[in-house]
């Protein structure tokens, strides 16, 4: 007899329900509730909320997660250094990372702090697309961080096994790069303008 039936029968008969609580059942109810499902985020839900995979169907996301590698980093652990060979694209599943630029290998410093990336943000897409990529920044875990990485061999395998999905992913990655290029171009134009203004003032 199930716990619910037992309680219902007892309450119908007017019997006392007893003081002891059935913890396993409560635990099950809690785990099965929509609230706890929302908190215990799985890869599928994680990627549903990421813009890069917005065009992916549920099944494609399920297949995509099979190509990922979960890597765990401790606070202050270096994920990669500026100038390292790059082969992978990372999504931040949990935690946060700090981006540093202008790293000098002669000095034991990480370089200048640029930005902090949080959960659901991503980095390293150039490593996936360029043939001989050198990382353009140093990335360091700011706290306990879980990254989901996809690497060149995975992309090749994906294109071979699921060409449509692979092409979609490549298109989305190319879009990210195009957006970043556009942003860079705008920044260069603004900087040039500023330099011109300064030159005119002088």
């Amino acid at each position: 007899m199930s716990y619910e039936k037992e309680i219902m029968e007892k309450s119908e008969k007017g019997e006392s329900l007893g003081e002891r609580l059935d913890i396993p059942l409560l635990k099950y109810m809690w785990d099965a509730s929509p609230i706890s499902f929302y908190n215990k985020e799985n890869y599928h839900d994680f990627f549903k909320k990421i813009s890069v995979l917005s065009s992916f169907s549920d099944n494609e996301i399920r297949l995509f997660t099979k190509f990922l590698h979960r890597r765990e980093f401790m606070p202050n652990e270096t994920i990669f250094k500026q100038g390292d060979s790059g082969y992978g694209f990372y999504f931040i599943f949990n935690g946060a990372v700090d981006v540093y630029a202008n790293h000098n290998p002669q000095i034991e410093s990480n370089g200048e702090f640029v930005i902090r990336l949080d959960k659901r943000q991503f980095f390293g897409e150039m490593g996936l697309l360029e043939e001989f990529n050198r990382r353009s920044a140093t990335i360091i875990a700011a706290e306990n961080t879980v990254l989901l990485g996809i690497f060149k061999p995975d992309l090749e395998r994906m294109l071979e096994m699921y060409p449509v999905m692979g092409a979609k992913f490549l298109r989305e990655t190319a879009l990210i790069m195009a957006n970043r290029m556009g942003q860079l171009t705008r920044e260069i134009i603004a900087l040039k303008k500023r330099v011109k203004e300064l030159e005119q003032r002088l």
Partner: protein
Amino acid sequence: MNKNQKIKLYLFLFISAATIVFAILFPRLTLPFGFSYIIYLMSRPFTLRLTTGSTKQRLGYFFLMIIGIFFLGLPIFATLHNVDTDFSSLSSHLPELQKTLQNKYFAFKVKVFEDYGWQLNVDPVDYLIRKIEGFGAFLLTSFPNYLSSLFEWFLLVPLFLYFFFMESHRFSRRFLEAIPNPIFEKCYVLFSQFNTKFGEYIIAKFIEATILGTLVTGGLLVIGFPYPFILGFIAGITNILPYIGPIIGVVPAIFVALLSKDPNVTMLSMVIIYSLANLIDMVLVFPLLVSKIVNLHPIVVVVSIVVGSQVGGIIGVIVIIPFIAFFKLLFKEIYKDLSVNL
């Protein structure tokens, strides 16, 4: 890198080195394991396609695979079937060949004495026959050992193959998870490149050997040369060795041509057939199939073959080339990193 990360890295390197030492110390396990891995890698492109895509695509690949196996297997089956006949014929003719060889050598000895006045005291024919007899006796005495190792292979290869097909994905996931963070990206990419190169190389060499063996057998059949199947089979097998393989492959045919009394059997026609087959291999088959996979200097290739045969016999000779190609890739990567960091 903190203390824990350092311990993890050193532990991983130690376990990797210990695995390599274990593999070298126990070739009875390593060789069947390597052989099973070769078969697994060879069949992986097809098995991958058979498990993905729509039902129509899977069926298409299945039929393509059957057709491929048929066209590749047919010449091998025909050759192996006839090799037995050729071998029996060769064994029955051995005493006759020995007599012919001795007569020819005697005539040569007399000619040297008459023309130059030199008395040849060595008897290479007798030496050769004694060696062949000795080899036969060795084969008989070591037969039980061969049988037991064959039995071991029959047990181990299917077991390892089952492991590779059923568990390799999970096992490689676990292995990759164990790689420490600082070296993960590089290790994973190199590991994948090695697997791809190794599989492609083995398939390419297998196809190349089949094509060359078929060409030689066909050519020898056309000119009516004796033992075409066994000679074609030898030419195909020895072709696995780059550069020196084709030369070793032609040696038995030269012996047969020298000893044959048949006027139709000429050295020239045989040499033309072997040269044509090797030319087709060099101009068409090798550049299309193999050269893109392995790009090594000829001296490196020859030295590698010697080392491979010393360490792992026939299997060693076959697998050493992709291993060296992988080490070249590894050193290039390390050198690239060092040049950036310095």
